[in-house]
């Protein structure tokens, strides 16, 4: 539909001017427009599966974490029945947040204003004033609004505000092959440690997402002070790095090593890591082919992206969500993941690998967040609305991978981003009820 009217706004979008038909150009307005941002909240964040928590954070009944689905605050909690429920964190009486902390274990949440009480899973327990008036209330209606769909895969809990969304399994499709290659790689599985590291970045929410979907080529440039272009790790990326798109919006950025590569080559993610850590990683690699598959064993991953806003940095063991706050503002949440069975000294080394480079105190990610916020400033130059961003690198080079699921492009091919914007356009403008 052309000239689509964004809900609640006077701005009419000419869809054709936002994105080139082959996605080789993306308008600056895609990042800075307030009206598009508002529309994204409805058409993307209310209609997709969103990551809300990790199962390892909810061990026993009453355990909860506060999270967000787009801008919507939610509580993810384990009920007395052992099931995970997600409900919207806003009191049905006058709207206050009933859960006012980040995580923990609770029997009840008490709303501050008139002290209505709720179970962590959202059910209304009591209204003190109604008791005094001797009135009965519609408990169902006055409970926290339940998020209609919740499902887990590989320990990751997803939820959707759309009751009619396709099953999570179908939604992820072949992306599960790449997820499995990481999340099931370590015998005993992975756990999230501690509360997330949260920071505000003055950028559009799509930039970090795009970066971790497949911008594997930027390391030697943006991070050239730490990963020089001629360093062995960058040479390996240029030689074996590919981005694979199993379906538009999801992608995996990996090095697909030759079939005769050794566990030592596959496990050495950071050649300057302590020898004990490299040994540990190599040991894990020895059994991946039997436990998973020979193809998954050859994957030396870099990043995964799950549409719309979940990312994983493979070698740095960090999971992250880009929560939208405004066209030029996100709250970025980053968790440290670690193999459950890794001994303590290995966990410490893995954590160093994460925190020195990544998270709010990381010297690598400091450059990413700098680039992302500068991109927003560039997007805000109205005079350049006739000069959309170029996304055409590698156009046409991508093709179905002979051994792996999805369409694959070599390092520097931007097809992963083109297909992200293809999915974005479909969400935003196809079948929209105007």
């Amino acid at each position, binding site marked *: 539909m052309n000239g689509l009217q964004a809900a609640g706004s006077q701005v009419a979008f000419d869809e054709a001017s936002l994105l080139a038909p082959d996605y080789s150009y993306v308008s600056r307005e895609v990042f800075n427009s307030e009206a598009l941002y508002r529309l994204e909240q409805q058409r993307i964040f209310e209609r997709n599966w969103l990551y809300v928590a990790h199962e390892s954070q909810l061990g026993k009944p009453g355990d*909860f974490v506060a999270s967000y689905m787009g801008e919507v605050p939610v509580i993810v909690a384990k009920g007395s029945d052992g099931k995970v429920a997600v409900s919207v964190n806003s009191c049905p009486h006058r709207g206050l947040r009933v859960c*006012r*902390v*980040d*995580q*923990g*274990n*609770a029997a009840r949440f008490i709303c501050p204003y008139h002290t209505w009480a709720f179970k962590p899973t959202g059910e209304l327990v009591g209204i003190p004033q109604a008791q005094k008036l001797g009135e009965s209330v519609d408990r169902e209606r006055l409970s926290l609004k339940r998020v209609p769909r919740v499902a887990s895969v590989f320990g990751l809990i997803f939820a959707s505000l759309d009751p009619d969304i396709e099953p999570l399994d179908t939604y992820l499709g072949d992306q599960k092959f790449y997820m499995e290659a990481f999340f099931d790689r370590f015998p005993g599985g992975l756990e999230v*440690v*501690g*509360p997330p*590291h*949260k*920071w*505000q970045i003055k950028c559009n929410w799509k930039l970090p997402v795009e970066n971790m979907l497949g911008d594997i080529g930027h390391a030697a440039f*943006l991070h*050239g*002070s*730490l990963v020089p272009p001629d360093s062995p790790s960058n040479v390996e990326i240029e030689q074996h790095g590919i981005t694979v798109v199993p379906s538009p919006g999801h992608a995996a950025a990996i090095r697909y090593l030759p079939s005769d590569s050794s566990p030592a080559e596959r496990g050495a993610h950071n050649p300057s890591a302590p020898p004990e850590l490299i040994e540990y990683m190599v040991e894990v690699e020895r059994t991946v082919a039997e436990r998973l598959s020979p193809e998954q064993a050859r994957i030396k991953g870099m990043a995964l992206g799950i549409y719309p806003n979940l990312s994983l940095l493979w070698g740095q063991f960090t999971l992250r969500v880009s929560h939208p706050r405004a066209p030029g503002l996100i*709250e970025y949440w980053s*968790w*440290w993941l*670690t193999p459950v069975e*890794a*001994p*303590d*000294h*290995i*966990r*410490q080394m*893995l*954590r*160093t690998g994460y*925190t*020195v480079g990544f*998270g*709010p*105190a*990381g*010297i690598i990610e*400091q*450059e990413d*967040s*700098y*680039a992302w*916020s500068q991109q927003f400033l560039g997007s805000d130059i109205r005079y350049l609305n006739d000069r959309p961003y170029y996304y055409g690198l590698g156009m046409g080079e991508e093709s179905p991978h002979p051994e792996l699921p999805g369409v694959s492009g070599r390092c520097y091919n931007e097809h992963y981003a083109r297909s992200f914007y293809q999915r974005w356009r479909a969400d935003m403008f196809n079948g929209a009820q105007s």
Partner: protein
Amino acid sequence: MTAMSAKTADSELISRIEQFYYREARLLDERRFQQWFALVDESIEYSIPTRYVPQPDFQKQDTEEFLSVDSELERAQGGRGAPLRHDGYLETFARTIRPFKRNAWAESPPPRTRRFIANVEVEPLAGGEYRAYSNFQMFYSHNGAENVTYTGSRRDILKDGEGQLRICRREVIIDWDIISGPTMALIF
């Protein structure tokens, strides 16, 4: 919080440690990171716990424990915790050397910083070591109009050796739960 040690510092010692902190702040503000690094002991443990809002323990109501700052800090706990940062000597070195590269893009051109150190308290420990508490305020200006103030406290262990104080331990307690400045990859 622990009670003040029975041992109290004399004013000469306090002043010496304050001078050490002022010098440290000046070196960092003047971007003399390698000179600053010379003040770091090889045994350094430089950490920034993650600050978050935990579910309060209602059993502790009406006691100081109920509002304890420590309960809001996610520390390293061996390998069981997820602080923002937990560096040793090598990692600290990496952070001091990087800004001098022309392609350290986020810091080239560099931010302008101004550190203020206050509320210094000193407790002498055994073996020529001192525990010192201080508050900091760091004004950070970058990219024209990007102006941020970082505030927090520091809990240090300083060691006296050959007439030179060195930092053996520094724990930085930041006042943000959601980091609202461009980066925590700075030296506080």
